């Protein structure tokens, strides 16, 4: 019993300190650095710290971290095969608490923080004296005035001998792709593969906000996502090879999140499918996204049953004792 409680305590501390707090801090720092760099202009001093962006980063990354946390906790359970059902239940309770209490708390803070955003946007003009490449064009600004009107030289790299233009008084566009200075963007832009992930995350953040603002009932429906994600932990002993289990869990988590995002985001084929099914069920009020809730609960129950079956089949999570005689 004592051992059990000790293990549970370890579990909870891990859960909070490492997985939630640490990951949120990492996410916040990344967001802060990236935002500061996007307003940077070549030749100016560099300062990556900004309280405003840091707090904003925390508020943005906390919900995301809490969501994907379930997978990492599942990995934790895989590694610590000494955990029994008791730990699982303890974890379940805390997961529920976090999801129902912590998430709304963070989300309501987010609203008030949004106001400061507009003020922090500085209009920076580009610095003269540098070569800046845009696709096949290279621009050199000999002077840029405060209205972002520039004079200088433009080189067209694809045009051969006559491709150099000396120009005067051209008004530059303020921002391209979110970066004030393309020189900075060159070295720090997000690679293409990750752009997709980042856009998904931002889409997810906006969805959470929307669902939260639509009232308590709607929020509870959204929380079925949390339930479905919790259930990935039942896959932890599906095969004998832990690595395969890890991949399966990741895969399941992505599928569940993907379905939910697609269904809730008001564009796209998946959304239309869900909406049409909803329409057919006439006795449910429109605001209640029934089909999605149904799918999530289905996933939850399906995985729960799978988990129970595997555990009862004798599973492989029992400590394997090797014979010393061998």
């Amino acid at each position, binding site marked *: 019993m004592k051992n059990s409680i000790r293990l549970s305590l370890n579990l909870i501390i891990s859960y909070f300190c490492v997985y939630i707090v640490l990951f949120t801090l990492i996410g916040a720092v990344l967001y802060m650095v990236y935002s500061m760099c996007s307003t940077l202009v070549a030749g100016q001093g560099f300062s*990556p710290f900004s309280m405003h962006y840091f707090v904003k980063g925390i508020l943005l990354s906390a919900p995301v971290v809490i969501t994907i946390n379930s997978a990492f906790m599942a990995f934790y359970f895989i590694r610590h095969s000494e955990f029994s059902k008791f730990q699982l239940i303890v974890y379940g309770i805390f997961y529920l608490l976090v999801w129902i209490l912590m998430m709304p708390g963070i989300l309501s803070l987010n609203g008030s923080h949004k106001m400061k955003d507009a003020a922090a946007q500085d209009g920076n003009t580009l610095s003269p004296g540098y070569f800046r490449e845009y696709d096949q064009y290279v621009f050199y600004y000999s002077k840029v005035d405060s209205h972002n009107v520039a004079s200088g030289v433009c080189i067209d790299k*694809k045009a051969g001998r006559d491709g150099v233009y*000396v120009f005067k008084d051209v008004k530059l566009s303020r921002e391209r792709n979110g970066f004030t200075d393309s020189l900075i963007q060159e070295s720090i832009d997000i690679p293409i593969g990750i752009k997709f992930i980042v856009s998904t995350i931002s889409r997810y953040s906006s969805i959470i906000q929307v669902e939260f603002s639509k009232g308590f009932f709607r929020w509870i429906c959204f929380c079925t996502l949390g339930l479905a994600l919790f259930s990935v932990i039942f896959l932890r002993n599906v095969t004998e*090879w832990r690595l395969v289990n890890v991949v399966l869990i990741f895969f399941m988590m992505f599928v569940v999140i993907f379905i939910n995002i697609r269904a809730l985001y008001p564009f796209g084929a998946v959304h239309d499918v869900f909406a049409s099914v909803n329409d057919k069920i006439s006795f449910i009020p429109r605001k209640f996204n029934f089909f999605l809730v149904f799918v999530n609960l289905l996933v939850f129950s399906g995985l729960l049953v799978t988990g129970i079956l595997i555990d009862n089949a004798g599973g492989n999570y029992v400590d394997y004792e090797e014979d010393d005689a061998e």
Partner: protein
Amino acid sequence: MKKFYLIMILYTALSFAFSLLYGAFFVNIPVLLQGTENSYKFFSSLLFFLKLLPAVFLSGYIAICAIIWQKTKKRVSVRFSAAMFERFTHIFISSLIATLVLTLNMEFFIPQVKGKIHSIENASSDVSNAIAATKSLMAQEKPLLAIQFATRALKLSPDSEYVRSIYKKALDFVDACRDRNFSKNSQKDEDDTVVHPLHDEDSKHSIVELLALAKSCAERKEWFPAHYWAQLAVQACDEKNTVLPEASHIANEAWKMLSYPLKFDNSKEREYYLLKKDGYSAYNSGDYLKAYFIFITLNTKYERGKDDPDVKKFFELTKEQVENDYFFYDEVQNIKEFSNSSKVYFTLTYPDKSRDVVFIDNSMDIKREGKLVKYVEGLFIARYAATGNFMYSMKVPCAKVTAIPVSSFSDDAKIILGIDGKWKYVPQITLQAVERSSGKIISKPEYNLLEENLPSRILEKNSMKSDGQLPVMHGVTVPPSSKNTLSMILPMTYDDLNIIADASAGAGNMGLWNLKKFLPKVESYGFSKEVFAESFVQRVTYPFMILIMFIFCATMGWNYRIVNPKTVFHFNWLFLFPVYCALTAVIFSCVEYMFTLMNYCIVGLFGNVALLVAFVVYAIMLFASSALFVSRKD
């Protein structure tokens, strides 16, 4: 361990095959020359594979570690046990090998393949540019330049009927022009050849006159002009002329008197005399640039110099040589075949804070008479005043760049030109090209005093708006009010020209050693210090990052190994393999990006000591990663 490498190689080969398939079906082919599509597809898939390689290695590594430790006999019940340390040594060695391969991949293979793809992509636009240039040069009645571009187009695309017809037209044009010139031979076009008015005027005297002038100067003991006239007489004589021995005698006498150590009243006079002699002998031996600066010093720093008629005469003579410097056009003939850098751009700052923006379309290095000479094509220079206002721009089809030793300049000259005494060689650009046989000027610079507006396609593509007055049409030449010099000295060290050629191609494409050399002076050439420093730190710390990741992956492998030694490998697990690889690739991308951000912060915060700080940070992370592995237990 053999099993380990075997599986790894197999896995790598499989992913290569996958890349080839991907390339065959999914690669966007831009506009290309005929016949190059397949090689483009192949190289694109190769690039895809090479970029995927780190993820392939890492995912394989985790899987293999997990498999190998399935059969482990040594159980680990405490952290930091000896068994784990032993495993750690195996891990570390294999990680090092993998790191080496991946670093080589990053620094060598990927740039090579990228370069190949780039040249295939550009071949098509290069050909159309060359053809356009040929046509416009034919219209401008410049046959020799036109044939050069036609030859280039033919070399790039020998199979195209169209290109061949253009080449034939250019050849015919050259012949037609030559025939025309023969018939016009009697009228010599004044503007068309290089002139040295003063020198030519002096040379117009008959030999007898020259000799008389020399003798009269010798009688007046004016040895400088005596030697000058006598020398001209010697040059004008052929071997059979009876006057030759007398002329040579006077020349030698004069030279002997010049070298004779005279008595001087004070050291300043002696200094002056020696300097004057230096200047004159430099002029005589053809080292016009050196002479030019000596005479400037004589003119400005010495009282006597201002009134000395000798100094005045020789200064003018030297000046016209320097300003009318030229090179022979046939030296530039094969520039494209051997061109080793193209589309180079940079800025230069002069002592009065005015700036030049320089653009070079193509350049080629040749060893000539033991010295390295650079020929550039499509040189464009725009000069801006210190305030940022436009002064003038200059365009020349071809130019020659030689390395002048800094020692040939006096200290004053160095200050005027903006040359740092620590440099060894500076580039001198000769802007005028002359045909060797006829002396006709083939190419010389055109000047433009007006700015213009950008064409609308450029404005649109970059979301810019034109804000200014009505434009002058692009390409219209407005003659400058004063005649500009035809040779220039750039305030930079000659070696930098080569490094800058690399830099214009991008920080990521520079050799690491060159990047390191270039870093301190990046800003003075118009490149961003942030970009180059970040690229440098990123590339130097890449092996560390990979090593840290491998050790971390080993930890993952241990954590998620197969616990039961009796388990058989189920083949339906292989279905998850694509998911697994995709997952690893994504995670690797994310981690790499996080390292990039971290490097960027380090560079931004610590400036010059950034590399050191980065090393320390990475060393800490390596240690932590290793500690994490060694602390594993069951």
